[in-house]
C-alpha cells in the first residue's frame, strides 16, 4: 500500500490517529441513473472527499442501471450506497449523503464528539 506522506493540517483530521489519517481511501458509490438522489449523492461525496480526503482517495461511481450485475456481487439493496473498501473494515453508507456529519462518522473520518 502506498503511504501518503501528506499530513493533514485540518483541525478535523487532527483528532484522528496518525495511521488512519495516512491511509488511502478506496470508495465506491453505487447510484441508479440520473435520479435526483443519485445526482445529489455524487455532488455530496465529491464535496466531502475534496474537503476531507484530498489527494488520498479513489472514488468510483457505478451506475447500476448500466452494470446491474454488480448489485448482487456488492450486496446492494438501497441506493445510493457508498462503500468504503479500504481502509478495512468494509463500511456502507446509504442515502444521498446530504448529512455530511453522518458521512464522516460512517467513514471514520471524525470521532464522535
Amino acid at each position, binding site marked *: 500500500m502506498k503511504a501518503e506522506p501528506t499530513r493533514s493540517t485540518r483541525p478535523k483530521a487532527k483528532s484522528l490517529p496518525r495511521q488512519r489519517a495516512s491511509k488511502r481511501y478506496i470508495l465506491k458509490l*453505487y447510484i*441508479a441513473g440520473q*435520479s435526483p*438522489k443519485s445526482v*445529489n*449523492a455524487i455532488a*455530496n461525496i465529491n464535496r466531502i472527499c475534496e474537503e476531507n480526503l484530498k489527494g488520498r482517495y479513489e472514488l468510483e461511481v457505478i451506475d*447500476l*442501471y448500466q452494470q*446491474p*450485475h454488480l*448489485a*448482487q456481487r456488492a*450486496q*446492494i*439493496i*438501497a*441506493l*445510493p*450506497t457508498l462503500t468504503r473498501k479500504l481502509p478495512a*473494515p*468494509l*463500511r*456502507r*453508507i*446509504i*442515502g*444521498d*449523503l*446530504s*448529512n*455530511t456529519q*453522518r*458521512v464522516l*462518522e*460512517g467513514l471514520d473520518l471524525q470521532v464522535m464528539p
Partner: protein
Amino acid sequence: MAPVDHARYCCATPVTANILQGNRKFLIKVKAAAGRVPRTSSCVRFRTETTCKQEESSKIRERPQLPDHYRSVIWQAAWNSAARLAPNADHETSTGGSYIGAIANLMKLHREAPPAQPRLRSQRASATKKVIVKHLPALRKALTGIQGLDEITGGGLPKGRPTLVCGSAGCGKTLLAMEFLVRGATQFDEPGVFMAFEETTKDLAQNVTSLGFDLNSLVARKKMVLDFVLVEHNETEAAGEYDLEGLFIRLGVAIDSIGAKRVVLDTIETLFAGLPNPAVLRAELGRLFRWLKGKGVTAVITGERGEGSLTRQGLEEYVSDCVIMLDHRVSEQSSSRRLRIVKYRGSTHGTNEYPFLIDEDGISVLPVTSLALEHATSNARISTGIPRLDAMLGSKGYYRGSSVMISGTAGTGKSSLAAHFADAACRRGERVLYFSFEESPMQIMRNMRSIGIDFQPWVKKGLLQIHANRPTFGGLETHLAMKHKLISKFKPRVVILDPLNSLIAGDNVTEVQSMFTRLLDFLKTSRVTGLFTTLVSNGGSVEQSDVSISSLIDTWLVLRDIDTGGERNRGLSILKSRGMAHSNQIREFLLTDHGVELRDVYVGASGVLTGSARLTQEAQDQALQMLHAQEIERRQLDLKSKRQALEAQISALRASFEVQQNESLRITGQEQAQGAQLAQGRVNMGLSRNQDEAQKNRRPKSK
C-alpha cells in the same frame, strides 16, 4: 359487452387428465368446444365442455362419482385451455365478480350451495352426461404443485400477483415458498427467483436437500436463481434519503436472466431490522409489490407473525390479493401444523384450518373436513374372518365401507378380532392398512402368530402395511394428516386403528371426536371399511366408549369379561349393527392356537355360565342325561317282558277256546244229522201211507 369483433376459436387438443380414485379410474376431458371471444372486450365469454368418463377397472359396477376435490383440477384445466384460446384477453382486469360467480357455480356442483347468479347455468355431471359450465373467466391461477394446496385454493395462487405467507418461526414458510418455486420450475415450466434475506444460498440448498430438491442443478439448468441479500445492521449508516432501487435492480436482473415467472422474497421484513427509516421502507415495499405485479410474476412473500397482526411490519397492507397463514401449534406436548387461507381476492377458497405435513415429499396439505353425508353405500358384505361371527351378523359379515368398532376392557381380544378381519381381507386379496398405537409391527406379528394368524406373507406380498406410532408422535391433526396421506397413497380397502382411544390425552375428547369424524367421513367417501378398537376402562360401562363416537359407528361389537367361578372368560355380543338382522346372543369367545372360536354360552337355571363352570355344568348335565337314558331302557325292558307274559296268556286262552269250539261244532253236526234222519223217516212214512197232492204241495212250505 363492448362492440364485438367475434372470432371463433376451437381447441385442437383437449386437455385430458387421468384420475385414479380407489379402484376407479376417471378420464377427464376438458375442451373449449366453441368459444366466442370478443377481442376488443375485456370480458371473455366462452364455453367449456367437461366430460367425465369412468373406466371400469373392477367388477364393482357403481355409478361413477367424481370426488369433489378433483373438480377444481378440472376447473383449472378448463381455465388453462381458455387462457390458451384467448391469450390476448386482459384477464387481469376482467370482472372478478363473474369469476366468483363461475366458481360459485362450480362449487354448486360440489355441494348443494345456494344458487349462483341465474345467468350461469350448469348441469350436474353424471355417468356419461356432459358438464357444461358457461363462465366468464377472470382470475388466472398458478398451480403450486403442493399437494392439497391447489385444491383448497381452487387452482393455485393468483397468477401475476403477490401472495403473503405468514406465520411464526419454524412453521414452514420458507419451505412452502421453496416448494412453490421448485414445483413451478420442474412441473409447470415456470422458472423462479428465490431472494433470501435470512439464509445464505448455500445453507438454503443444503436445507432443502432433505426434501429431495436439488437447487444447484436447477440453478445450473437456469430454472432458478438464488440470491442471498445480506442485511447487516452495524455496517450500514444512513446519511440522507435513500430508496430500494438496488433491490429492484437485483430482482430485475434475476428475473430477466431466466425469464422467471415466479418470485419468492423470504423474509423481506428483515430489511426493517437492517435499514433505518421505516416510513421510507414501507413506501418502497409498496412500490416493490406494485412493480412485481407490473412484471407479471407470481410472487410469494413470507412474513413473520406479529403481535396482534398477521405480520410484524403489517405487510398485509401491501400484499392483499392472497394471504395464507401457517401455524404450528403445540397442545398436550404434541405439535400440529395448520394452514389457513385468510383471504383470496377474486376467488372462493376453503376457509377452514387444514392440517399439513412436512416430510420427505415436501409439504402436503390435507383438506380433511367433514363432508356432506352423501357418500355412496355398498350392499356388498365382507367376512369378519370368523365364520361364527359372520353367522351372528346375518350370516354374511360386515358391510363393505362401514365402520366397525370393537370395544372392550383390557385383554378381551380386541386386537385378535381385528387381526382376523385383516387376515380375511388379505386372503381376499385386498389391501389392509393397520395403524397401531401400542404395539410395534414385529410385536403384532409375533402375538398374532400365537393365535394362528401369520401376517408375514401378506406383508411380503404388499397387501398389508402396519404403521406403528405412539400417539405422542404428533398432534391429532398430524395423525389425521398422516393417515389421510397413507390411505391416499396405499389405497387400502380395510383400515384398522388399534386402539383408538390412545389418542385421548388429557381433556381433548372433543378434538379426538372431531378428528375421528373427519377420518370416518374420509374412509366412507373412499369406501374403505374401517375397524377401530377402543379400550373401555375397568369399571366403566362397556356400552360407552371413551371417545363417544358410538353414533358414528355402524357395527359395534362388545367384548366383556365374564368373571365367575374364580376365572375370567370372554364374552362377545353385538351391541348394534345397522342395516342387518343380527344375533342378540352372547357368545363365549375363546382364543385358541388356530384363531378365535365362538361358543354358545350355557344358559341354565343357575344363570349364564362360561369357562370351566360351563364345562362342569355340561358334565353334570351329561351324567344326568345318562341316568335318564338308563331308566328309560329299564322301563322299556319291563314293558317288553310284561307284553310277552300277556301274549302267552292270550295264546293259552285261545287254545282252550279252540278246543271248546271244536267240541261244540261236533255236537251241532250230530244233532243236525239226527234231525235229517228224522225228516227222511217222516217222508218215507208218508209215501208209504199215500198222501194226497194237496199235502204234497203244502209240505215244502212247512219245511
